[in-house]
């Protein structure tokens, strides 16, 4: 049975439990579920919101490409990813990744792999909106995100 990733880009929030259920309901071959969710930080109460811009079409396509690699590489039984766009307030969800597999290591690795590649390859850009009304500018890409990819290079 081929495993197809479930990738969604949406403005609305997501329900983690409902998403886990979608992946696991009616199955008895899954022994491990790993979820990662990324939230908006308040940056010591200076941030009023993050604005997430994305490239419609390519954002879905690119995360799907990464998810397909993760399924193949780690032998996942399923993977879901939801990335929100628009204005997101501190404390709110930005991104969700759920990986399922027979045993835990594949799910841990699959979720980690997807997030590492999503950070540097999925076409999203964050802009800061500050509480004092100032334009906080666009968030700079981090070298540490590029470095994180190195651990996935096959030796």
């Amino acid at each position, binding site marked *: 049975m081929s495993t197809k990733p479930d990738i969604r880009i949406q403005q609305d929030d997501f329900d983690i439990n409902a998403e886990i259920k979608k992946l696991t309901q009616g199955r008895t071959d899954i022994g491990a579920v790993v979820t990662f969710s990324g939230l908006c930080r308040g940056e010591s109460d200076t941030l009023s919101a993050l604005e997430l811009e994305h490239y419609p079409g390519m954002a879905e396509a690119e995360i799907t490409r990464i998810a397909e690699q993760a399924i193949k590489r780690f032998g996942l039984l399923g993977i879901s990813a939801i990335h929100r766009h628009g204005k997101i307030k501190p404390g709110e969800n930005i991104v969700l990744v759920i990986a399922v597999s027979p045993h835990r290591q594949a799910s841990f690795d699959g979720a980690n792999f997807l997030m590492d590649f999503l950070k540097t390859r*999925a076409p999203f850009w964050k802009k800061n909106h500050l509480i004092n009304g100032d334009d906080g500018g666009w968030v700079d890409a981090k070298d540490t995100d590029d470095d994180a990819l190195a651990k996935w290079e096959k030796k």
Partner: protein
Amino acid sequence: MTVKVVYFSWLRERFGMSEEQLDLPEAVKSISDLFDWFEARGEEFAAVMEHRDIIQVAIDQTHVQDKNSLIGDAKEIAIFPPMTGG
């Protein structure tokens, strides 16, 4: 050759538009040629192209790492800064 070019993040803001149809001269064959063409296009475009080493490109919604890649019969070229999702 006419191609749709889309811009994101601060490139979009600096150019003051999110997309445009460009009629490119025959001589613009690669991404690198396209960047050269932008440099000669006007002050604001040249200012953005000072960052050409970090600017990223997708052709028909697929990342292009090599700036010598040919544009060919691309329908859509996207130009954007390093991504910051997740």
